[in-house]
């Protein structure tokens, strides 16, 4: 065994230790400690620490194992031990010196969690032993054959996820007596938080078994699909799309109002994301003022439909009458912004668009426009969308409106991507000068990108206003632009499925974990950094980006040349 392997294990162990100490000192262990994943066995706070050790051990094992598996287990154990040793150091310092004046989260509760309620000496020993054992477990998990390893990881992940979302599951599944009985058994008695031990074991076993079987049969299935003639493959693809469509259609009926509302928020971000995806992902124009179009859509909808009577104009249009005006106004602003920035690229474009977003926000909040759009008081009593006699008020009915909007945006994006315009965007993204030398009209190509992106965002804004019934200027901050941009980056620039994945991860998940919202931005930042390090092309990248980052695969697997668009 090479010396560098041990050094690597030590390095990773220390890094893991720093992460664990940080997680403890920002208070996450304590706050998350109030909720159990498995009742009476492990809390979420402890899970965070265990997860850190597991990850560190696993990465160490995967780096050092090579041909000798025992070495992998041993180095995993070393890394695990070091990680817990760092926590011990924190514990000992904390016990000797009062850290609280500087680090407010270094509280007695934290120490109690770290020592498992024992006295310091015993606690330290338990902590070290656990680090060692978990490191060994991580090494052994890495040692397992891939299929079993996948099954074990899937099982553990799902136990964690169910424990995390327990309240939600209980509430959501309450209307279904059969299922809710099973769930109630899984979670044990009502008073306790977290899965019961038996429930956790059942969930783990079932998920691991399903995952194992899928790994065994899934490849087979894929191979069979690939062996089908093209028409059959297309049938499979359309069939699965139709299935997904049907599931999305019934979703709000199953999910209930809370989850529907979360879905609506995700949906509005998807809609906006699809728009920005055209501007940034397809055409490569970095737009940091994207919130402007969202705001314009929302304000136009608000001004045209409000029945509040607080503002000078009194249109009182219906939602459907105002919608085209709202989208049209956004498109117009898209073009108006587009014209002055035609010659700008990269950083300069980003700064100008950033300024544009701020201008719109400051205008919205200004006293100057207050008589027309409410200023800092905003607009109230915005019209609700109607369908015949049905007023779309509940999250469930709004879901269908947003769903329809997303479908439309996906369809338009998809058709545009494969069109001449889409190709011009792609060429422009790669190199503007050459695109021009290929005969592409940069002016119309750029303006079309800005206008389409603005249209989707304006649509999202208009629905947003109708959904909340109010429009307030503080909804339209720079953070919104950054959020939409981040979800595109996390999902994969220029990729349509990527927008969905990105919105689910960055909007849906934090929404479901509302109670931990004070750590939202921390997690957000950590996720972005980890993504950039390990998967810079995004969760579901577009072909061009995947090829850029995974060259070797691209050469082996020829990309079928697409027929030029007529």
């Amino acid at each position, binding site marked *: 065994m090479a010396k560098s392997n041990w050094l690597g294990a030590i390095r990773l162990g220390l890094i893991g230790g720093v992460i664990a100490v940080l997680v403890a000192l920002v208070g996450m262990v304590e706050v998350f400690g109030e909720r159990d994943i498995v009742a009476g066995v492990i809390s979420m706070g402890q899970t965070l620490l265990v997860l850190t050790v597991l990850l560190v051990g696993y990465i160490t094992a995967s780096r050092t194992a090579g041909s000798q598996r025992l070495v992998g287990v041993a180095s995993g154990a070393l890394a695990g031990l070091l990680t817990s040793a760092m926590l011990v150091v924190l514990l000992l310092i904390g016990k000797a010196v009062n850290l609280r004046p500087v680090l407010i989260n270094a509280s007695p509760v934290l120490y109690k969690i770290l020592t498992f309620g024992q006295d310091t000496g015993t606690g330290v020993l338990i902590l070290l032993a656990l680090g060692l054992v978990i490191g060994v477990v991580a090494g052994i998990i890495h040692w397992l054959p891939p299929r079993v390893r996948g099954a074990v990881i899937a099982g553990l992940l799902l136990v964690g996820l169910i424990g995390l979302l327990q309240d939600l599951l209980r509430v959501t599944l309450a209307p279904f007596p059969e299922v809710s009985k099973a769930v109630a058994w899984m979670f044990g008695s009502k008073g306790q938080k977290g899965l019961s031990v038996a429930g956790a074991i059942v969930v783990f076993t079932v998920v691991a078994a399903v995952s194992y079987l899928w790994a065994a049969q899934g490849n087979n299935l894929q191979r069979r699909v690939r062996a089908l003639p093209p028409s059959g493959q297309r049938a499979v693809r359309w069939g699965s799309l139709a299935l997904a469509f049907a599931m999305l259609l019934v979703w709000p009926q199953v999910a209930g109002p809370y989850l529907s509302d979360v879905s609506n928020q995700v949906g509005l971000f998807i809609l906006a994301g699809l728009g920005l995806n055209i501007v940034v992902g397809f055409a490569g124009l970095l737009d940091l003022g994207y919130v402007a179009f969202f705001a314009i859509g929302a304000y136009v909808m608000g001004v045209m439909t409000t029945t509040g009577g607080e503002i000078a104009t009194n249109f009182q249009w219906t939602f459907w009458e105002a919608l085209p005006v709202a989208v049209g106004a956004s498109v117009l602003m898209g073009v108006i912004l587009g014209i002055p920035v035609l010659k700008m690229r990269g950083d300069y474009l980003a700064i100008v668009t950033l300024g544009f977003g701020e201008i719109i926000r400051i205008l919205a909040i200004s006293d100057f426009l207050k008589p027309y759009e409410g200023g800092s008081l905003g607009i109230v009593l915005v019209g609700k969308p109607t369908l015949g006699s049905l007023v779309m008020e509940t999250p469930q009915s709004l879901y269908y409106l947003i769903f329809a909007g997303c479908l439309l945006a996906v369809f338009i994006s998809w058709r545009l991507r494969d069109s001449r315009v889409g*190709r011009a965007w792609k*060429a422009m993204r790669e190199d503007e*000068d050459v695109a021009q030398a*290929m005969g592409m*009209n940069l002016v119309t190509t750029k303006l079309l990108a800005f206008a389409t992106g603005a249209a989707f965002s304006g649509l999202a804004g208009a629905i947003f206003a109708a959904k909340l019934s109010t429009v307030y200027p503080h909804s339209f901050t720079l953070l919104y632009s950054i959020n939409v941009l981040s979800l595109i980056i996390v999902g994969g620039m220029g990729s349509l499925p990527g927008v969905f994945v990105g919105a689910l991860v960055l909007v849906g998940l934090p929404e479901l974990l509302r109670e931990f919202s004070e750590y939202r931005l921390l997690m957000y930042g950590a996720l972005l950094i980890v993504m950039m390090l390990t998967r810079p092309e995004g969760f579901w990248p577009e072909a061009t980006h995947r090829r850029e980052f995974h060259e070797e695969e691209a050469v082996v697997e020829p990309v079928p*040349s697409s027929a*030029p*668009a007529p």
Partner: protein
Amino acid sequence: MALLEVENVHTYYGNIHALKGVSLTVNEGEIVTLIGANGAGKSTMLKTISGLLRPREGTIRLAGEEMSHYKAHEIVGKGVVQVPEGRKIFGRLTVTENLEMGAFSKVDGAAIAEDMQRVFALFPRLKERRHQLGGTLSGGEQQMLATGRGLMARPRVLLMDEPSMGLAPILVQSIFATLQQLHRAGTTILLVEQNARIALQVADRGYVIQTGEVILSDTAENLRRNEMVRKAYLGIS
């Protein structure tokens, strides 16, 4: 009537007078070369013809039609296609995708497919590498790709800017052999080169440009023999 006529063209970069009344003609089926030192205005001339720069004075005509009021992308549609200096291929797109981009001004799918086969016949290396990313090709292959991409637009005049730049001598030979092949097939080429020796070998006629002015124009053969050209550009005393 010449296919491409440039008459008394003045181009400026801000206040800098880069082209001071340049006139040149390219006849159908000819290879004409523009030689000169760094900064003489060779690339400026090409950029002016392809519409990336606008002449302040003078006319540019293609087959008698005045071109200087067209925009760059419209000029490509008219059949004046530039193979840019430094190749400028799309590094993250495959060879096939690069060629498809070259055919952007064309809409007939069958004709595009045919043109692509023609490019592959001219450069078999590109066919071998058609699924590879442009950025992973060698310099010579990138020049082939850039040339092929230019040909995909079915140019009436192909403007080539420094095709020999940064290539090993053997690759330069092969690129110029291809140019001769294109020439025999009837393609009209305006070639800008610093490597005057090889440019004058393949060209029919040549113009020598110095600080924005044409100082000499003749057949390539006569230029090769010209005392001044030999001294200044061929390095023979």
